[in-house]
């Protein structure tokens, strides 16, 4: 027994000793900027499984691509970027666990994601407390950057660590309302949302602008996003004789909602935000033709700045499409890379010891031409690029109809 204990203890001691020595030598070498490169991890949080995984996987791949390109170009001397993807399953509680995981890993200097605004709400505070930069490519919930008082004009930035390359629902919903009223010339709308942060915010902003323009909201309702049978709501829409349906929510419920509406004989377009702008929406909805969606940025395929991105994405051989947020994610990841670059340059070519704080201060000065256009952040952490695009489903494909830099 005694022998056994001795062997175990000495074994354990040797192991721990070895471990620490390895760590020490590693970081010394990294610090000196010599042969071995310092690894900077960029955390990535998105729904990689479940309902919204098509969008999530596009986000993961695009972020991965950005770090690979940065490494290949050797953009930051002595720094090797790496992505650490975590799956939040579109659930706030899991998002928060992921956030604490990122905070615990000292090599993480910035986090890209998540997709959902309500997931972001659970992650903002831990990141803020840890001083870790977060850049979301997809969160459009206005209160995330401007506080709960934004509807009354009382804008206040709640978390200094939160940035985003997507513009806000306030811009998006308002843009949709203007497009539907002035371009599509639809004067009466039925309004439905799924009561989530994203859907409700979008619907509220849509309603605000649409009624101001003179359009009529002939009815409104809420649905449960887990439902797939919307015939009861469809019957109500039918009765009002609305000329379009605006839906604040995401494609898994919007697909059957739109199809059941048209099946019931109501041939009106369904319009939504970037939550609908996915190829899966058309796959799940055999009567999607004529439906509309808005999305942030200009269509990636049309921008010259995006051609390189599309080619690189293709060459990298990812299985999944980059989807709605590919360009925005690339830019979000790139903004962190640029911030790291600045932090390193300001510190004589070495990664500063308080790298997280330095990256955070550098974020406000980041300025570059990204995939979706010129990227920089305003005093709230919002992107200064408020380019919006309206899309329509034509021949089972999303076709860009109209892009503009939109200010509500």
């Amino acid at each position, binding site marked *: 027994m005694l022998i056994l204990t001795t062997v175990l203890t000495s074994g354990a001691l040797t192991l721990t000793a070895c471990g620490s020595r390895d760590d020490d030598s590693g970081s010394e070498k990294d610090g000196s900027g010599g042969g071995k490169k310092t690894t900077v991890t960029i955390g990535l949080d998105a729904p990689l*499984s*479940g*309902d*919204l*995984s*098509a969008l999530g996987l596009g986000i993961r791949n695009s972020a991965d691509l950005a770090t690979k390109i940065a490494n290949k170009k050797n953009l930051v001397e002595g720094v090797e970027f790496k992505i650490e993807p975590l799956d939040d399953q579109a659930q706030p509680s899991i998002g928060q666990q992921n956030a604490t995981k990122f905070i615990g890993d000292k090599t993480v200097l910035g986090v890209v994601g998540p997709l959902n605004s309500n997931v972001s709400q659970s992650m903002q505070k831990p990141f803020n407390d840890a001083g870790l930069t977060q850049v979301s490519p997809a969160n459009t919930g206005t209160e995330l950057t401007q506080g709960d008082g934004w509807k009354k004009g009382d804008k206040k930035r709640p978390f200094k660590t939160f940035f985003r390359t997507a513009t806000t629902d306030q811009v998006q919903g308002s843009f949709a309302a203007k497009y539907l009223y002035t371009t599509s010339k639809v004067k009466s709308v039925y309004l*439905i949302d799924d*009561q989530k942060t994203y859907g409700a915010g979008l619907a509220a902003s849509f309603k605000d602008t649409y009624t101001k323009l003179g359009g009529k909201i002939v009815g409104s*309702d*809420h*649905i*449960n996003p*887990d*439902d*797939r*049978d*919307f*015939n*009861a*709501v469809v*019957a*109500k829409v*039918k*009765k009002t004789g609305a000329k379009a349906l605006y839906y604040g929510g995401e494609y*898994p419920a919007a*697909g*059957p909602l739109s*199809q059941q509406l048209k*099946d*019931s*004989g109501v041939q009106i377009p369904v319009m939504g935000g970037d939550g609908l702008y996915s190829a*899966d929406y058309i*796959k*799940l*909805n*055999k009567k999607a033709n004529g439906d509309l969606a808005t999305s942030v940025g200009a269509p990636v395929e049309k921008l010259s700045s995006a051609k390189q991105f599309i080619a690189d994405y293709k060459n990298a051989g990812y299985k999944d499409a980059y989807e709605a947020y590919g360009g925005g994610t690339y830019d979000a990841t790139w903004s962190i890379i640029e911030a790291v670059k600045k932090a390193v340059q300001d510190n004589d070519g070495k990664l500063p010891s308080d790298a997280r704080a330095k990256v955070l201060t550098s974020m406000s000065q980041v300025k570059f031409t990204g995939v979706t256009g010129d990227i920089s952040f305003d005093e709230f952490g919002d992107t200064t690029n408020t380019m919006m695009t309206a899309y329509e489903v034509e021949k089972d494909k999303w076709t860009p109809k109209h892009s503009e830099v939109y200010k509500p």
Partner: protein
Amino acid sequence: MHELPQQLANGLILGAMYGLIAIGYTMVYGIVQLINFAHGEIFMIGGFGAYTVWQFLPDSVSLLAVIPLMIVGGIICSVAVGTAAERFAYRPLRGAPRLAPLITAIGLSLFLQQLVWALYPHAKSDISFPQFHGDSFHVLGATIQRGDLFVIIAAPLCMIFLGYFVSRTRSGRGMQATAQDPDTAKLMGVNTDRIIVLAFAIGAAFAAIAAVAYGVKNGQIGFYMGFIMGLKAFTAAVLGGIGNIYGAMLGGLVLGVAEALATGYMGNIPGMELFGGGGWKDVWAFVLLIIVLLIRPQGLLGERVADRA
């Protein structure tokens, strides 16, 4: 009020689907007093079984010809999983405290969900299911979709079959005997083990038919679809009187109609504007359940197993 026939039709169609799934809960409960919470997943597996058959068939074949094959495929998968669940997850626990099989059931339901997800990686989000194309029908002021016809025809047929089976066949009478008193039934020469397997199999087959109905109606299936549908079907079974097969169908229909009417009209009642609409329909469905249980705890048609000690 011309919306009323439409809402009633919507509710009845949805309710018939709940009813078909509820029969699986009610039969199993009637015989072994077990709430098979994995039944929602057996329903989901029926959908994926049918989907798999569809994948192997050429596109050119008309859906009408394919549907019977898909139903068979769905039934095979559901029945296989349902009976295997009985054999490996529930039978070893027979006679154990009631909580034990309940926990296994929940574990089994998660296991099946994740299994299907692992087998169909592209089903991470909903996947599309074949649908009937063509015009809808107009009956008494309501529009009925072609996809809905499936459940409208299937539900009564299933009920007639089940009614005949339970009251007229030897196995059916054995089932009734086992439900009343398994020990005495055994003494009278009824093979109770076989009867229990049969109950699981019939419930699973009906769930598979409901899953095909769900698929052609909504045009999509997903690996988690069993959860909410299973919960609703369980509610329907309790509403109708758990253990009572006609009660399960009635409970399903009542639940479906209640949901449709709550969505359509609750908001029109003065003072209730806030509580109407689609977001509230589940609330009203469960309020209805609570009211029925308060006034008639045995359910609408009564429990069949009430005479047991």
